[in-house]
């Protein structure tokens, strides 16, 4: 049995190098087919009538006019008379027609009588939440009362919050559904091709074996695309009713209203330290919403294990679209509240926050030494010690510059995944696993691992992914994919290689254990003159390919993935104190994530996460109107993403020492999106001398904070 491990960095031909993503050409030429691009013969287009109200009951629904419209082939009532609707945009009825325009006309011809009910759509003012607020039990660690009462304690109190933000996937959620007899074929836009199988089967009461799900490309998910959703079931019903394929993609407004958002958090925090900056006590009263279901409870204090703590959290149920996992669920909120309060304490103590966090680094637990080194590296890249100044003591004039920092962590252990590798007699290698590439580079990583292990060029590797008839490859969530699929691929490739060696060793006058694959050859170890080219070796297989399965985890075959990554980010901002506009000048990220398979796409994850972070820190928020119960910005001109012009100078430093190499492959997609909120907000506080309490840091809030602080 081979020794299941990763290649040593100095011997690796591909692993850890900078390799362009293998599906790049398909994406830049427009030939990559997303679900939104799928066209089937005779396909109909579906549109959905959605509730205009945040809370109402459907009194009656009349679809007859819609049904009679020429070109309309079916109407499916999703939620009929008598149903209570709990948020604006919820699905009421779906129409399938010959084209999009006719379907839109038909939706407008559905007559619904609603009885409006009382709603609550805002949560920041907890006093107005009434019985919609559900407090959880208080949690206490140590003796916080004593710690805060200590004579020497220096305390600081603050209020911090992050608003609800949406996933805003560029490819909206949706499906193409098609029946052949009792078998349903679905093209979903999803992060979970195989998981949808069971969801469709259960909802439609058909055997899971009758559901075929296929997807090659998905235009973003960020945690919002794991479910079949009401509209997916509606598409399947419409396809059944009409006997034709049906495409149902959400319009931009419902995408923003109902297809996913990140819970808010608001918190009143008090922390205490000794005069030398040693952190002693934490107390927080926090609340959040995730829609009807309440909302997540962010980990607080985040990373810093204060010896004494008291925490109370309240979930608020509101009448708005439900939260979904949003890239590193709960961590950005917890990081924001915690790191902002620590920065405020440092300011009160007149300490450089870098010194304060270094002084307390042991409170971060077993990662503390790595954090310390990462902080120092980030400080070097930001020239922190040369450039940091005490609050509001930077440049004269109306534009103020400042620095801020934050730290984060994530788990990221590789999930369960299986992979089949076949070496064909013509030398081509087939890798089959039902995973999906959500833009993180999953295809590229799998191809690198297979090619590295077999010593062949990546062009020889053919990938089959995104089809539930393939071996299970897991969902793309929790940054668990790269560890899962790279481990299963590595084991499958090593086993396939062993089989190949066993079949051809005698032809080289040796035995399997004396063979190795290097740079397109199969040769005898210690006698490189004896060997075959890869193609010659594969040809020796005759008519029978070799095929092997690999899986993760597989205790008998060692661990190729582990858990626990982290990083440090620093931000340099300018704040125009006359206009309230914040600009990020530079960001630095130092990030560890075990063994990196492809440096190029790994760095892209960090750059992208930080840019998404700039978006939620400066621009993004779901704006709800309490009077009408409606979302005021379900679009992309008033729900603002960061653009090219908002992108600062960015420095990404991946931590790749020998220790990380030994840890195996660990996920990266989520962790770097955690710190930007706190790092940028702390830089704004450093620049201006005032705390802008809640994200996003829009000009109006910056000006209000300056005025409150007497600095306007």
């Amino acid at each position, binding site marked *: 049995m081979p020794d299941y491990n990763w290649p040593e960095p100095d011997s690796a031909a591909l692993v850890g190098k900078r390799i362009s993503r293998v599906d790049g050409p398909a994406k830049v030429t427009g030939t990559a087919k997303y679900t939104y691009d799928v066209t089937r013969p005779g396909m109909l287009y579906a549109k959905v009538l959605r509730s205009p109200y945040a809370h109402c009951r459907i009194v009656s629904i009349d679809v007859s006019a819609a049904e009679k419209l020429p070109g309309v082939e079916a109407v499916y009532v999703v939620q009929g008379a008598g149903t209570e609707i709990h948020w604006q945009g919820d699905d009421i009825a779906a129409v399938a027609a010959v084209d999009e*325009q006719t379907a839109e006309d038909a939706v407008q011809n559905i007559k619904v009588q609603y009885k409006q009910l009382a709603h609550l759509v805002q949560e920041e003012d907890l006093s107005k939440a009434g019985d919609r607020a559900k407090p959880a039990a208080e949690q206490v660690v140590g003796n916080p009362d004593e710690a805060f009462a200590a004579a020497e304690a220096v305390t600081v109190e603050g209020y911090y919050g992050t608003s609800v933000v949406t996933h805003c996937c560029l490819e909206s959620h949706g499906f193409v559904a098609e029946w052949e007899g009792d078998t349903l074929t679905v093209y979903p836009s999803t992060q979970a091709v195989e998981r949808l199988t069971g969801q469709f089967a259960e909802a439609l009461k058909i055997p899971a074996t009758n559901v075929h799900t296929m997807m090659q490309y998905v235009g973003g998910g960020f945690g919002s695309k794991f479910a079949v959703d009401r509209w997916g079931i509606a598409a399947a019903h419409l396809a059944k009713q009409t006997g034709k394929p049906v495409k149902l993609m959400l319009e931009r407004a419902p995408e923003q209203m109902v297809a996913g958002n990140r819970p808010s958090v608001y918190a009143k925090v008090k922390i205490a330290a000794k005069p030398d900056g040693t952190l002693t006590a934490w107390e927080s009263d926090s609340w959040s919403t995730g829609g009807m279901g309440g909302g997540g409870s962010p980990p607080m204090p985040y990373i810093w294990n204060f010896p004494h703590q008291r925490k109370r959290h309240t979930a608020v149920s509101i009448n708005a679209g439900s939260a979904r996992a949003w890239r590193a669920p709960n961590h950005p909120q917890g990081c924001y509240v915690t790191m902002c309060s620590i920065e405020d304490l440092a300011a009160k103590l007149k300490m450089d926050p870098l010194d304060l966090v270094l002084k307390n680094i042991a409170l971060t637990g077993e990662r503390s030494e790595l954090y310390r080194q990462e902080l120092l590296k980030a400080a070097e890249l930001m020239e922190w010690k040369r450039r940091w100044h005490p609050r509001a003591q930077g440049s004269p004039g109306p534009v103020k510059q400042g620095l801020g920092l934050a730290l984060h962590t994530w788990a990221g252990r590789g999930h369960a995944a299986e992979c089949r590798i076949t070496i064909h007699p013509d030398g081509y290698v087939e890798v089959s696993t039902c995973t999906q590439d959500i*833009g993180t580079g999953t295809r590229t990583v799998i191809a690198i691992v297979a090619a590295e292990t077999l010593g062949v060029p990546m062009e020889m590797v053919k990938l089959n992914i995104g089809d539930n008839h393939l071996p299970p490859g897991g969902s793309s969530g929790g940054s668990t994919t790269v560890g899962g699929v790279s481990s299963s691929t590595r084991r499958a490739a090593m086993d396939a290689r062993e089989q190949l060696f066993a079949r051809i060793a005698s032809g080289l006058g040796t035995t399997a254990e004396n063979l190795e694959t290097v740079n397109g050859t199969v040769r005898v170890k210690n006698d490189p003159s004896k060997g075959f080219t890869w193609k010659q070796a594969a040809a020796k297989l005759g008519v029978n390919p070799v095929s092997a399965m690999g899986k993760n985890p597989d205790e008998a075959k060692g661990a190729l993935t582990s858990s626990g990554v982290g990083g440090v980010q620093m931000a340099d901002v300018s704040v125009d104190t006359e206009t309230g506009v914040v*600009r990020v000048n530079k960001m630095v990220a130092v990030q560890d994530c075990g063994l990196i398979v492809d440096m190029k796409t790994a*760095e892209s994850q960090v750059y992208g996460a930080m840019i998404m972070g700039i978006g939620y820190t400066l621009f993004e928020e779901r704006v709800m109107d309490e009077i009408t119960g409606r979302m005021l910005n379900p679009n992309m*001109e008033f729900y603002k993403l960061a653009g090219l012009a908002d992108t600062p100078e960015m420095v990404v430093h991946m931590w790749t020492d020998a220790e990380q190499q030994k840890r195996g492959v660990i996920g990266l997609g989520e962790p770097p999106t955690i710190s930007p909120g706190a790092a940028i907000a702390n830089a704004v506080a450093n620049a201006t001398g005032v705390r802008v309490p809640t994200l996003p840091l829009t000009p109006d809030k910056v000006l209000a904070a300056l005025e409150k602080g007497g600095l306007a």
Partner: protein
Amino acid sequence: MADKRKDKAEETTKAGISRRKFLKGVGVGGGMLGSGVLSGSLLQDGHGAQAAATKVLGPGAVAIELNVNGKRWPLTLEPRVTLLEALRDHLELTGAKKVCDRASCGACTVILDGSPVYSCSVFAIEAQGKTIQTVESLADGDTLHPVQAAFVENDAQQCGFCTPGFVMATKALLDKYPNPTAEQMRLALGGNLCRCGTYVGIRQAVMQAAQNSPQNSHQNSKTRAPQAGRQSRAGGGHSNA
């Protein structure tokens, strides 16, 4: 013909624009309005120059012809069908994407008579008689266009959904300014949005593609273009600056 007579007989305001013509101008040219430029026919109607040529189309399907990627395509579609829908649903050119559907994000960018436009906000019937270039036209077989090659090399893409729009916006920029300044790039690509945050790679890709641009050797690098950006749309709309 009946329409012509009606138009001629119609009362005009003192400014020379009839209410009916104004609405028609907005209706047909609405996409262009959305893109920040008044419909040419509306402006000229104001001076009475083209009133006679205005023709009411629809609401039923009409026969039109589009010149896409060097080929002429006869199509029958309703006047309300956008250029994006015509390309995607009628010609199966699915590189351009509908994302915001209202000229905010640039995922639907195609090049119309040499200028980048939001095809979600141009009616197909408006695009008649103009040359339309889509992302599908750039590569020569397996050989990528320099812009495309630079996007791959610099990993200027993640999920890839915005990528065709960025590629076309970049091509239009480099066609006009083979050596763009950072400011020209910012303006020209400011009307495109990426959710995965690939702007660092995009910046590098644009500069690399500029270096590899075939026109570059003919360009006098001392000639600084006065202004970048899109004639037919607002660029830089997403900057807070």
